[in-house]
C-alpha cells in the first residue's frame, strides 16, 4: 500500500513540474493507476489483464482498441463498478474499491454510454443531478450547487437549451446535457465511455472541446474511451492501446500510433504520417484475419 502511495505522489509531482500552470487547485489532480489486475464478468475467464497502467494526473489519456478489446471493462474497474479478480486500481493512492461510494463520486465522475433520462427532464434538471454526491439526504440546493450547475451548463455551451426537455433534443445536444451533469459533479478526474460515438462531427468536437477546456483550466485528469484512433491521437496526451484485453502499447500518441499498431491491434493496413497535431492516420484497407 505504501509503495502505491509513493507512486501516486511521484506521478502527481511529475505533473506539477510539467504542467504547474494548469494543474491548479488544492493538491492538483490525482492519478489513476492499475496494478497487475485481472478483470472478468461472473466466473468467466479474465476479459482484461494488465500488469501496470497509468492515467497520469492532470492529463488526458485515451483508451483505444477494437471492439471487445476490454476498453470499457477497464474503465469500469477504474470506477469501482467491477472489482478485479486480482490486483488493484488506485485513485489518488487508495484502492478505488475501498472508497466510500459518495466520496468516490465527489472526486471521480463517469459519463457512461448507456444513460437514460425521462423525456420530460430539462437540461438544467439533469445537470442538477450532478450535485447528488455533494448534497446530504435532506439537504436542498445551496449557493455552491447552483453555481456548479450554471458553470457546467456554461462550459458545455448548452445555456440556450437549459430549459428544454432532454426528450426533444438531438443526440448530440443530449450528450452535451449529460456532459453538463458530469461536469456539475465537479470531480478531480473524469471517466468518459465513448462520449463521441454516434454523434455528428460538430457535437463530437463540442464534447471533446469542453473536456479539453476543463482539463486545461482545472487540471482535471481525464480517461476517455475513444473509437476513432485519429481523434484519440489528436485529442489525448497519452494513449493506452488494448488488444484482446491486454495493453499492447501505452504512451504519448506519436510513440503509440504506428503502422504496426494499426496492423496488429486494429487489423488495418494504414499509413501514419506526422502532422502538426501529432500522428495522422490514413487507413488503406482491412487486413483479412
Amino acid at each position: 500500500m505504501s509503495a502505491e502511495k509513493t507512486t501516486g505522489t511521484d506521478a502527481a509531482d511529475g505533473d506539477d513540474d510539467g504542467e504547474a500552470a494548469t494543474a491548479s487547485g488544492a493538491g492538483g489532480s490525482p492519478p489513476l493507476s492499475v496494478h497487475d489486475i485481472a478483470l472478468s464478468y461472473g466466473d468467466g475467464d479474465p476479459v482484461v489483464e494488465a500488469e501496470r497502467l497509468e492515467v497520469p494526473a492532470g492529463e488526458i489519456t485515451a483508451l483505444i482498441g477494437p471492439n471487445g478489446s476490454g476498453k470499457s471493462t477497464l474503465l469500469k474497474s477504474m470506477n469501482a463498478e467491477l472489482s478485479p479478480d486480482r490486483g488493484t486500481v488506485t485513485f489518488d493512492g487508495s484502492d478505488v474499491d475501498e472508497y466510500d461510494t459518495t466520496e468516490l463520486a465527489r472526486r471521480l465522475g463517469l459519463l457512461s454510454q448507456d444513460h437514460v433520462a425521462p423525456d420530460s427532464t430539462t437540461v438544467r434538471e439533469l445537470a442538477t443531478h450532478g450535485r447528488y454526491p455533494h448534497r446530504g439526504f435532506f439537504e436542498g440546493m445551496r449557493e455552491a450547487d447552483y453555481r456548479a450547475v450554471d458553470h457546467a451548463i456554461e462550459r458545455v455551451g448548452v445555456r440556450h437549451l437549459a430549459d428544454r426537455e432532454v426528450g426533444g433534443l438531438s443526440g448530440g445536444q443530449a450528450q452535451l446535457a449529460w456532459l453538463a451533469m458530469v461536469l456539475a459533479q465537479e470531480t478531480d478526474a473524469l471517466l468518459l465511455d465513448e462520449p463521441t460515438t454516434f454523434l455528428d462531427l460538430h457535437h463530437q468536437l463540442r464534447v471533446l472541446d469542453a473536456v479539453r477546456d476543463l482539463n486545461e483550466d482545472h487540471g482535471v485528469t481525464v480517461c476517455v474511451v475513444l473509437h476513432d484512433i485519429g481523434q484519440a491521437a489528436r485529442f489525448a496526451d497519452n494513449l493506452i492501446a488494448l488488444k484482446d484485453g491486454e495493453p499492447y502499447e501505452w504512451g504519448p500518441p506519436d510513440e503509440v500510433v504506428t503502422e504496426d499498431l494499426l496492423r496488429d491491434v486494429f487489423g488495418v493496413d494504414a499509413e501514419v504520417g506526422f502532422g502538426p497535431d501529432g500522428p495522422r492516420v490514413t487507413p488503406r484497407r482491412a487486413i483479412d484475419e
Partner: protein
Amino acid sequence: MASETSETVPDLDGPFSWVDSSLLTVIVASTAVVVLSGLIQVSFGAFTMSVATAWSAVFDPVVWTNPQVLLRLFLGEGIGNAVAGALGISTAAVDLPKETLIVWQIRMPRVLVGVFVGANLAVSGAVFQAVTRNELASPFILGVSAGAGLAILLTLIVFSGLAGFLPLIAAGGGAAAFLLVYAIAWKNGTNPVRLILAGVIVSTVFGSLQTGLFFFANDLGVVQSALAWTTGSLTGVDWEQVRMALPWTLVSLPLTLVGARQLNVLLLGERTARSLGMSVERVRFALSGVAVLAAGTAIAVAGIVSFVGLIVPHMVRQLVGSDYKRLVVACVFAGPALVTLADVGARLALSPAQLPVGIVTGLIGGPYFLYLMRKQDGMGDV
C-alpha cells in the same frame, strides 16, 4: 435566448420552485373531484335524507367549531380527548343532530378511507415504477397483492380464529411476498427485469394457491368476504379504518417525498446513479420498503383495489412530467380523486346493491390502458 434564461433563473430559488402550473391544476382539479365525490357519497345510505340535508350536515358548524369532535373521530375517544386536553381544547361532550351524526359517524369514514387508499396506492405505484424503471410496474406486480390475497384467504378459511387481525395479516402477507420476490431476484444485486419476472413467478404460484383455497371454503359468507377483500371494497368501513390508515400514511407519504430526489436519480439508470455516488441496492430496497408500507396500508383497510397504483402515476405523468417531486405530490391528490370517484360509481351503479370499488377501478383502468397503448408507441419506458 437571453430573455428566456433570465425568466427562468428566478424560479429556481425558493423551496417550492418546483411547483408549476400543471401541478397546481392537478391539485385543484383532484381536490374538486374528491370534495364532489365525497358530497355525493355522504348523500346516500340506509337512512334517507335529502341531498341538501346531507350537505348541510357535512358543513354543520357544530362539528367545525368544536375541534374535540373531529379529534375524537380521527384519533378515537381516548387519544382524541387526551390530545384535546393537552391542547387546552374543551373535552366536553357535544350533542350532534341526528343527520350530522349519521353523516359524520357512518358515511364520512368511507370517503376518508377512500382518500387514504387512493393516495397510498398511487404513491406506492409511482415508487415501484421508478425502482423497476418500468411504467407498467405497480404495487402489485412485485407480488404484494398475491401475498396479501393468499394471507387473506388463509386467515378466512384455515385460521379463522385470527380473523380479527385480518388487516394486519393482509399487509404482512404482501410484505412477505415482496421479500420473497426480492430474494428470488437477488443475484449479486437485483435488476428491474429480474424483479418483475420474480414478481410474476410469485404472483402466479400464490394465485394458484388462492384459487385452490377457495375449494376448502365451506360457507358462502366466507367466500363473499374473501372476494370483497381480494377485489378491494370500501363498503362498511368505519372510523376504525381511518385511524388505522392515518399514522402509516403520515409515515409513508413524507418518506416518499423525501425520497423523490433518489427516485429521480434512479431513473437515470443504474450505472449513472452509481457513478453519482448512490448505493443503488440500498436505496432501491429502502424505497421499495416504503412503497410496500404504503400499499400495505391501503390493503389493510380496503383489500386489494386494483389498477389504482398502475394508472394514477401514469395519468399524472402525462400532466406533470416525470420529475418525482411533482409526480409524488400529484399522485397524493389524484389517487384519492380516482378512488373516491370510483367509489361513487361502486355505490350508485347497481343501487341499491353495492359493488366493491376494486371492480370499478378495474373497469376504468383497463380501457384507459388500452387507450394509452393505442395512442403511445413508446409505452413501457418511464
